């Protein structure tokens, strides 16, 4: 597999973000094993220490756990915890700027919902 790393962020951080995205997307479920350090190092052609460092951060954030002799596993409740912290982060860091932009453009909620992509509207009775 070939992926391009971004030069302004350390690779272990980018690797961590990939695992986080996989947990949020459901590509990795709670209780699932993470691929072994060796496997990831070989697949991405990066040093095993880099992979270990990324995994260690996930352990420190209590998203994965190390099971002796078996490897790393996604902790129960990891997805919920991630969703919570990602929602908080969105509201804190992204929403104020987005809200200001919507105000500037004069877009109201009704218009936004009408224009929402079909796949994203879901079935929660939010028809205009």
């Amino acid at each position, binding site marked *: 597999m070939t992926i391009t*790393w971004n*030069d*302004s962020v*350390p*690779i272990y951080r980018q690797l961590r973000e990939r695992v986080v995205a996989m947990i949020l997307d459901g590509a990795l479920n709670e209780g699932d094993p993470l691929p072994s350090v*060796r*496997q990831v*190092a*070989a*697949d*991405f*052609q*990066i*040093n*095993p*220490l*880099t992979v270990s460092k990324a995994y260690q951060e996930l352990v420190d954030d209590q998203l994965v756990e190390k099971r002796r002799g078996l490897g790393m596993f996604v902790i129960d409740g990891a997805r919920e915890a991630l969703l919570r912290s990602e929602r908080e982060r969105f509201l804190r860091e992204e929403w104020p700027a987005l809200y200001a932009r919507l105000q500037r453009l004069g877009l109201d909620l009704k218009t936004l919902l009408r224009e929402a992509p079909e796949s994203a509207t879901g079935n929660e009775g939010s028809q205009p």
Partner: protein
Amino acid sequence: MNAVVTATGLNKTYKNAHALNDVSFRIESGRIVGLIGPNGAGKTTALKAILGLTDFKGQLNVLGFDPRTQRDQLMEQVCFIADVAVLPRWIRVSEAIDFVANVHPRFNRAKCEAFLARTKLTPNQRVKQMSKGMIVQLHLALVMAIDARLLVLDEPTLGLDILYRKQFYQSLLEDYFDENKTIIVTTHQVEEIENILTDLMFIRDGRIVLDTDMDTVGERFAEVMVSSDKAAAARNMKPLDERQVFGKSIFLFDGADRATLESMGEVRRPTVSDLFVATMKGTYA
């Protein structure tokens, strides 16, 4: 940490050239070290000294042995792949395996055969019928099946196509490397190994001009893209290098203050090849 290689004051002169000029370094166990330098900088001489293939002045300890006097013991623990083909052209795959099995006490035949089973090589095939990539595959299979603590690779992927090159490093990481092993590699294709390395050494004119671990590279060196109005200010901060792209200047700094750099433009980590070009400026001039 235990040192795998400790070199102190290595010197080696050929007729009129200083191939190694007071070279000192230390390599720890479990590292993957890139020894990078222009042609004729002394890379191969340094590797030959480590392998006991050349004489030199100074002190050198490799896995507790002196390569000059204890080469036999040392060779049980060290493997080497050179850029020049060393496998005889007439030998068959099966004969090569038999040979290594007979001469090397730490060779694991099953491991070698398992690795070869994943390639297109067949036991009866002779080296002279193989492409360069296939020869390297065979060589790698023989070497990886030896439980050696130090692996020395001198331009291992020279002349290979992209597929074989990727597969080479993938195999090393998947089937060979662990925290008890150490790899020293020289190559001109730095971009394909820069994420694999734990440590980086630059050699120029027989001297080690940079010796650092990769984490430190990211902390010490920074590239910043600056628009023309701030270029003079950046130039005042004594950059290692400057180049122009799309009307902007890219400066490479060693040890400059991060916050100051960030106030001038977008900061990123330089690639090993950028760093190499900046460090080796004027080598052929």
